[in-house]
């Protein structure tokens, strides 16, 4: 409808529409946002799938992520190399999972990755302490931090190894009423 865009081929847009929760218009808009992060690096023509990655520092300065205490972890979890360099595919993937329409199970998987700071597939007490300190900018006393982490593990740990595996985490998230409404970014 209207002017024909030359950024993506129709097949690419179809593929994006099937693989994410965005419509064609939103994907084009996302491309615009990706482009304006680094106009000299990102080509306007994506029809032949160029291999362009933007570094972590550029992406965490986006207004949607700037105030988020977990912005570094979010971008790292969606990057292929684990260092935070996102290609356009990763970029779209990230916002797709964080959009309103993504289901709870999918969000829980990525939330677990985000909160797992040492990437050992468990959320241990150190990960929890880091999460809490990022949330409150270290304004709780160490005893309070310790107490809160212990209580959180006590609530969620099912198999008794005093850290949270993915099963524990998913079970706890299904009982957390605010997760779906807070774990989403509007773009």
């Amino acid at each position: 409808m209207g002017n024909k865009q030359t950024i993506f081929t129709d097949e690419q847009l179809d593929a994006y529409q099937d693989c994410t929760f965005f419509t064609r218009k939103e994907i084009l808009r996302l491309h615009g946002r990706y482009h304006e992060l680094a106009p000299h690096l990102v080509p306007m023509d994506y029809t032949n799938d160029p291999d362009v990655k933007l570094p972590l520092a550029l992406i965490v300065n986006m207004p949607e992520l700037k105030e988020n205490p977990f912005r570094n972890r979010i971008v790292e979890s969606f990057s292929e190399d684990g260092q935070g360099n996102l290609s356009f595919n990763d970029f779209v993937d990230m916002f797709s999972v964080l959009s309103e329409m993504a289901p709870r199970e999918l969000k829980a998987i990525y939330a677990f990755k985000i909160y797992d700071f040492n990437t050992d597939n468990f959320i241990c007490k150190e990960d929890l302490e880091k999460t809490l300190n990022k949330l409150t900018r270290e304004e709780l006393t160490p005893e309070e931090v310790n107490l809160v982490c212990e209580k959180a593990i006590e609530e969620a740990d099912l198999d008794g190894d005093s850290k949270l595996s993915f099963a524990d985490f998913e079970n706890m998230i299904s009982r957390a009423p605010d997760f779906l409404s807070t774990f989403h970014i509007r773009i």
Partner: protein
Amino acid sequence: MDSVDSVFYSDHSGPSSNPLLDQLPSYQSLLYRRKSSTSGGTKRRGSSRGRLGSSSSWRWKGDKVEERPKAPSLQRPIRELPKTMEEKRRDREQRMEQDKDLSSWKQWRQNTRRTLKRLKEDSVEMLRALELWRGDIHVIEGMFGTGILSYFSFLRFLVLLNFVIFLLMFGFVMLPIIIATHASGNITFNRSDGSECSNYPSTSRRGLVVFHQYITDLLSGTGFLEETYLFYGYYKVEAIRFPRFTYSIPLAYVLVTVAYLLLSLIWIVKRSAAGFKRNLVQDEDRFQSFCNKIFAGWDFCITNENAARLKRSSLLYELKTDLEEERIKQKIAGRTRREKCRIYLLRLVLNVFVVAVLATCFYCIYRATIHSQQSQMQRPTNFILDLIYEYLPSIVITLANFITPLMFSLIIQFEDYSPAFEIRFTLLRCVFMRLASIGVLLFSLWSQITSCEGSKCQCGYNHTLYPCWETHVGQEMYKLMIFDFIIIGAATVLVEFPRKLIVTHCDCGLAKWWGQQEFAIPQNVLEIVYGQTICWIGTFYCPLLPAISTIKYFIVFYIKKMTLVNNCRPATRPFRASSSNFFFLAVLLIGLALACVPLAVSIAEIDCSQACGPFVNYTKSWEVVPHTVSQLPNGLQGFLRAISSEPFAVTFFVITCLAMFYVIALAGAHKRVVNQLREQLAMEGRDKRFLIQKLCQAQRSLQVHSRSARESAQNYSDPGGVFLVRPPSDSATHA
């Protein structure tokens, strides 16, 4: 526990120390395959498969078990898989290849399904673009988070609800009358039978009318407004005879009233169903858990620096409050018997005091209403004084609703409840106060209307003072609504703006103590629920009230948004979005229930006026329905009578009770099963760790044996007879 857990201590510099663990299917679900991994250095990001349960099959690292291609109907949509974009695209192409192998019928079905899905997505996107105030709400969400957002989306819901109610009333009651005058319909007006009861003196002003009289009329619904579509009294139509059928206005009036109440109920229940389901599934015994605050506490939507700072401080406050609450719980558990008696006695005294306060307020409202009614019957004297007397009930109600929350929040501090319960209980008391004050007003109105000089009223109501009492009640509701709107506007302009100016420019101690305005969500919600209850009750007497209400809430949205952005800081005690949605709709439902009671009493019990309105030919408004039913064909009539008869009602009630008991029993059984499964899960986890530990021990002892066997063989061949102790080579325990 440490010896068992040592299998899990991976040194972070290298891969995990036990290859067995890596091969477990549950590990494979989230394994990070880094560049230095043994899988051949593929550039794939981790997480091959998510927790797909029984609908997928696992691919083992060592084994080459291929994935079973699932039937298309059982596959999850691709966008819900936790893979990278390239993997998802490959999956998509794979599925499209599979589709080509299917029969042409199945292919056609797939294609239609795909196009329908696309169509649905496009239409949903178009509808969302048309959504009212989408941009404004986005901005509010970014600045203040999802708690305050829920208030504004609640306001939007009320605007839509009122608009739909107005459309109902307009379409079924007003439109036929308007059409009939232009089309070929023949209107039969209600004839006055000349009796004393049907004498309705005209209220239009004659002669030289002073200008301020028009203002009084506009603000109180009398004078030129009284005989318009605005009020019940104007609808003096019995029926409209169109060429082919007769349209009965009284029947339409009663049925539309019932319809809009039912519609409101269904819409509210549907909206709260999602939140309620979640509340039922959780068996939380605490107010809000720590995990919920840590993992779902930060609003990822926040884009504003100020809002982020405030969110951080509010999270901090919440966590500190929770720790405090833990301490208080321990203190309560450690109370002695004597302390308990003292506290219960104190609570009893304070509750009696609260009841006394409520009774005083209600009595004040009652007396104010009676005084206002009596002064309205006299000649108008002073313009301003008359207006004050007209609005006296509204003024008293607003004053009472301003003072009582302050008193309640003061009293509850002495009652020594846990902080969470304190909030809920105070809120409950305020809700009751707000909504019951409308009931008291109506009750006092009715006591005036149905009391005559003698013992029994001639026409069933006081026809000398209130020839058309429904219009009068409609006028009172109209006044309540107008006054409510004026108060919201005045509070913003006269209180909040000056407060902000004083706090930002003045540096005195008073300004610092007063502080900047907080956007207190519960009080604001109560305000708009109060307005909505008035609308529900008043629509029967004043059919254009929903339209006025729509316009009022429309303007209130912008007023509140302006005051939020300019004057307020978010409350230090944050209101969580999940529980708040449920709270708003619960309070709205209470308002709806409270609105149904006066309407039911007035339609079914009180004699309708003989001088005006559509029900002149009936004694009570409800009588039009049995009257119409008796004119229906015999079969339908018999069916309707059977449905409304007692045996049917009793049977229906018994069946509903049985269904409810069954569902409750089922819920209890499910809860037990969930607990059992949880224990089983914990046990399985411990079993797994125990087995792995045993296996590792067995592996180690096997290696030690084989090593020592090898070494003894080698040492045996050493000619010097010196024991060559070779350092143990890197065993197979390291991957």
